[in-house]
């Protein structure tokens, strides 16, 4: 019902369109991780090359396991550099190369490192490399495809994707369809260091997107993603604790609870549905406002909503200040419980699959404007209702030549 009302509300937007041209730094259909780059916006002129780099830092404190899962210290620190090289070789062809690396340090790694063969986290060192190619079929139609992969201690992934976009000049809009697939392999190393046979995790997703200029000062985009996953969908090193007052205190648990750990077991299939959109409107010569929202549902019982307003202000000299907020709420998976006293067939205590709300505030400052070199810094803080607050910082640089 909510979504039907959303559809009617959007249909009331005044229909006046124009199609802006300009460099594309990644719109919603350009999920840089693996999806193909499509959309109404161009990638610069023929011969233009852009090199973008970012160093991200993420920190979450959960000393003693006081927040989230009470049996687990979920302290986590991640350092992630990302590099994107993009070249518009000619009017009809362009390509990009994306490289990313994660270095994860966490209490879980330290906790589990005492077990032979278990590094702790599937992301203690992550390396990802993706290649994307785009071709212009006509003045209005573009096709693109992508191939890539990633490796971690106990996880490997191969991804492919393709997309098609068409511009409706008379409507100043564009329609894009993206398809992505991942063929992943999970080395099942359990929380106690025991191993099982490798398992597959297969994922396919389709995204339909619509970009629209609404009036001379407003443009936006809306999309729908449907995805399906099958195979081993849990986190191998996760455990659930079954409490029993008759058990002795368990030193492996953050709170030394009287309980025994068992493996996490989740369904071997998952279907997701996501409706999302955002619109940006110029409020004045130096100010713009963006509103974004997303609605999510899956067959694990998780429903989620988020709302993201963003206010931008351009300073003299081209510097840009971006202040943003994000409210997020989700329900718990059907098989999630903060505590177990029995052992059901499907079970998880992963706090990321529980019910919680979060509020994020952040700011970004960029300078260099439309010049060939642009720097940016951003700081975000997220307050989560289960206590797993975190903050993240990033420093970015972009050069066009």
């Amino acid at each position, binding site marked *: 019902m909510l979504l039907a009302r959303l559809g009617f509300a959007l249909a009331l937007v005044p229909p*006046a369109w124009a199609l802006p041209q300009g460099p594309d730094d*990644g719109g919603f259909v350009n999920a840089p991780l693996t999806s193909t780059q499509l959309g109404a916006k161009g990638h610069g002129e023929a011969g233009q090359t852009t090199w973008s780099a970012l160093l991200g830092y993420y920190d979450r404190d959960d000393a003693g396991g006081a927040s989230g899962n009470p049996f687990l210290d979920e302290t986590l620190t991640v350092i992630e550099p990302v590099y994107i090289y993009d070249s518009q070789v000619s009017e009809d062809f362009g390509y990009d190369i*994306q490289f990313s690396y994660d270095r994860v340090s966490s209490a879980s790694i330290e906790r589990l490192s005492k077990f032979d063969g278990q590094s702790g986290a599937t992301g203690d060192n992550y390396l*990802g490399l993706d290649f994307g190619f785009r071709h212009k079929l006509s003045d209005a139609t573009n096709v693109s495809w992508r191939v890539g992969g990633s490796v971690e201690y106990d996880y490997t992934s191969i991804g492919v994707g393709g997309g098609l976009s068409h511009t409706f000049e008379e409507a100043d809009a564009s329609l894009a369809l993206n398809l*992505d697939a991942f063929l992943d392999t*999970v080395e099942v190393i359990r929380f106690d260091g025991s191993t099982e046979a490798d398992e597959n995790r297969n994922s396919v997703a389709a995204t339909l997107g619509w970009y629209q200029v609404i009036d001379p000062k407003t443009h936006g985009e809306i999309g729908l993603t449907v995805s399906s996953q099958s195979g081993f969908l849990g986190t191998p090193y996760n455990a659930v604790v079954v409490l029993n007052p008759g058990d002795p205190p368990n030193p492996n648990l953050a709170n030394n609870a009287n309980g025994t750990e068992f493996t996490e077991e989740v369904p071997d299939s998952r279907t997701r549905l996501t409706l999302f959109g*955002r619109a*940006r409107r110029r409020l004045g010569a130096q100010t713009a406002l963006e509103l974004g929202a997303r609605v999510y549902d899956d067959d694990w019982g998780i429903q989620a909503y988020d709302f993201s307003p963003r206010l931008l202000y351009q300073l003299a000299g081209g510097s840009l200040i971006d202040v943003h907020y994000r409210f997020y709420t989700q329900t718990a998976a059907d098989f999630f419980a903060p505590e177990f006293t029995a052992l059901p067939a499907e079970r998880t205590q992963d706090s990321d699959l529980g019910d919680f709300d979060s509020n994020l505030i952040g700011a970004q400052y960029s300078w260099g404007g439309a010049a060939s070199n*642009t720097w940016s810094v951003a700081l975000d803080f997220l307050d989560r209702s289960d206590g797993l607050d975190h903050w993240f910082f990033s420093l970015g640089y972009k050069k066009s030549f």
Partner: protein
Amino acid sequence: MHMRRTKTMGSRLAWALLFCLPASCNTVDFYQKGSLQGPLMEIGGFAPRGKFRSKVHYSTEGSAGGLSTTAGGGCGCY
């Protein structure tokens, strides 16, 4: 039960999107397009930051998909 709910929700989403498509078109003249240009109006922004932020969110939340994200697969995060 949840598959049925997802299927019903999918139908509703499809109809909602259909109503979102414009029924009439009025183009904006070329001289009016200037307001939509430039970093101030660029939707999406800096791609590497979108990638980093998206990974932070989908690695720490139960949902995935949407703006600048994949919807499952590609890493052990989710």
